[in-house]
């Protein structure tokens, strides 16, 4: 197999894994974030421990977990606790360094909607709701977002704020409300990656994936997009990253899009 041919999912997973450099405790869901965290453990974050909101710390899954409640996350884990301990002592306790979230809508300040499209009382589309997302967004020291780039997702205004990002962009907005976590740091999509400007707290383009133009990205974002001064091309997955993903982490290509 030609190693420099890779899927956009593989690129997203690799980019997400690198963002975990040196981290020790990550709050993770299933799918791409799960593979990204396991990739990071084998590369840039050897001490990384995976925490699942179902109550698992230090999971050693013998197979690719298909849900956060997969029993393979329990067998051989370091610790399994109640949801009360997980949300009280781990998350609210400030023990979670990084967390991954997704959403149906994201605004320019990284606020997230996973509750409804349309009016709350009379929704056009009823989405799953917060789950633990609201608390994760509030308490995790860093939040990473993984989502496909699309104008329907990257909107001017959310229909509902499920999970707070940088709110209205005031630098002290979160701390003024007593929110301890640092909020969104990085957005990984299938076309480009974004970071949040230190002053304006606005989501700005930080790197374009190989072959993608600024215009293509702007076309999928509802607000006039700014870029970091030194806009880069996203470093593609390395041979070793691809090998780990393909041979060890997702051999069936379920989440890396090679199925």
């Amino acid at each position, binding site marked *: 197999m030609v190693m420099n041919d890779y899927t956009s999912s593989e690129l997203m997973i690799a980019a997400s894994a690198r963002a975990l450099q040196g981290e020790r405790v990550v709050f993770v869901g299933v799918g791409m974030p799960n593979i990204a965290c396991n990739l990071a453990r084998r590369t840039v974050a050897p001490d990384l421990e995976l925490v699942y*909101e179902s*109550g698992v710390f230090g999971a050693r899954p013998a197979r690719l977990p298909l849900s956060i409640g997969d*029993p393979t996350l329990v067998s051989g884990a370091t610790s399994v606790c109640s*949801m*009360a301990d997980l949300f009280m002592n781990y998350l609210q306790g400030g023990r979670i360094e990084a967390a991954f979230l997704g959403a149906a809508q994201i605004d320019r300040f990284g*606020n997230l909607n996973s509750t409804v499209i349309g009016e709350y009382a009379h929704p056009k589309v009823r*989405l799953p709701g*917060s789950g633990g997302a609201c608390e994760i967004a509030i308490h995790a020291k860093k939040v990473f977002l993984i989502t496909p780039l699309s104008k329907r997702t990257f909107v001017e205004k959310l229909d509902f*704020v*499920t999970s707070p990002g940088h709110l209205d962009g005031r630098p002290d907005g979160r701390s003024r409300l007593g929110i301890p976590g640092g909020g969104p740091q990085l957005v990984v999509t299938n076309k480009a990656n974004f970071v949040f400007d230190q002053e304006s707290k606005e989501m700005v383009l930080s790197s374009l994936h190989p072959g993608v133009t600024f215009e293509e990205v702007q076309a999928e974002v509802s607000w006039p997009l700014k870029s970091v001064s030194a806009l880069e091309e996203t470093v593609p997955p390395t041979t070793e990253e691809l090998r780990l993903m393909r041979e060890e982490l997702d051999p069936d290509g379920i989440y890396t899009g090679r199925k």
Partner: protein
Amino acid sequence: MKLTSMKDAVSRYVPDGAVVAIEGFTAFICFSAAHEIIRQKKRDLTLCRMTPDLIYDQMVAAGCAQKLVFSYMGNPGVGSLHCIRRAVEKGIPQPLEIEEYSHFGMVGRYLAGAAKLPFYPLRSYYGADLAQANPRIKFIQDPYGSGQIAVVPALNPDVAVIHAQRADEQGNTQLWGLVGMQKEAAFSARHVIVVAEEIVGEEVIRSDPNRTLIPHMVVDAVVHQPKGAHPSYAQGYYDRDNQFYLAWDAVSREEQQVEAWLEEWVYGLEDWAAYLAKLEAQEPGIWERLAAGEAYSQPVNYGVYR
């Protein structure tokens, strides 16, 4: 004598209009109780669960529910709960009132309910819209000066159904794996039905008292129902049937298909034994596919102190 049949336990402790919590966070989800509730045509229930999951999708489709109290309305790892969405978005088969929290909010509600606290404080909902959407979520001032903190009200269901690996005939119940909020749900409820994969002797329970999350004192009925959580699972007993979760995504998209499914798999069957027999007839190898394998805990010594 608390050991009884699911039919009896449901008819005795799940009246129409009851507030019901069949808990079990992504595990120990007691479908055998749900099917019996559907079969007995219970109505106007308020269904409480952090994750409604397929179990409440089926109960809502069957018209058992008038209200849903929840924090994550999805088919875990698959997608939407189409029956609940039809009820919420289109009022099919009937309108469904919702009372929504985050996971932490539901955790706090069970903690408060179990401890007979009027409310539980949590540092959440700042900068989010949920507290506006649900006025039962409030904010109070920290008397020690740290500012505002959110509170949620206690949840005290009329009945909680707790699925577990093993219990004795008195109802002393042991669980391991994803214990979720099973303990708190049991202590918070007025009545408790324990559904166990295995009924064990008191001496098994007493050999490891720290594993006993639910004492008989809070248990009203004990139902022995092996594989009673399928398509969910019991750690160490069988695996989650992910094929079923995927299949339900297709079935549940069409109201008529769901009615046919309920007819075939619930109404048309006498009890859970019939359900299991039908499953096995359809897929003789199902329990091999869902086999748990063996990985035993290393024993600990409690000592004998004479």
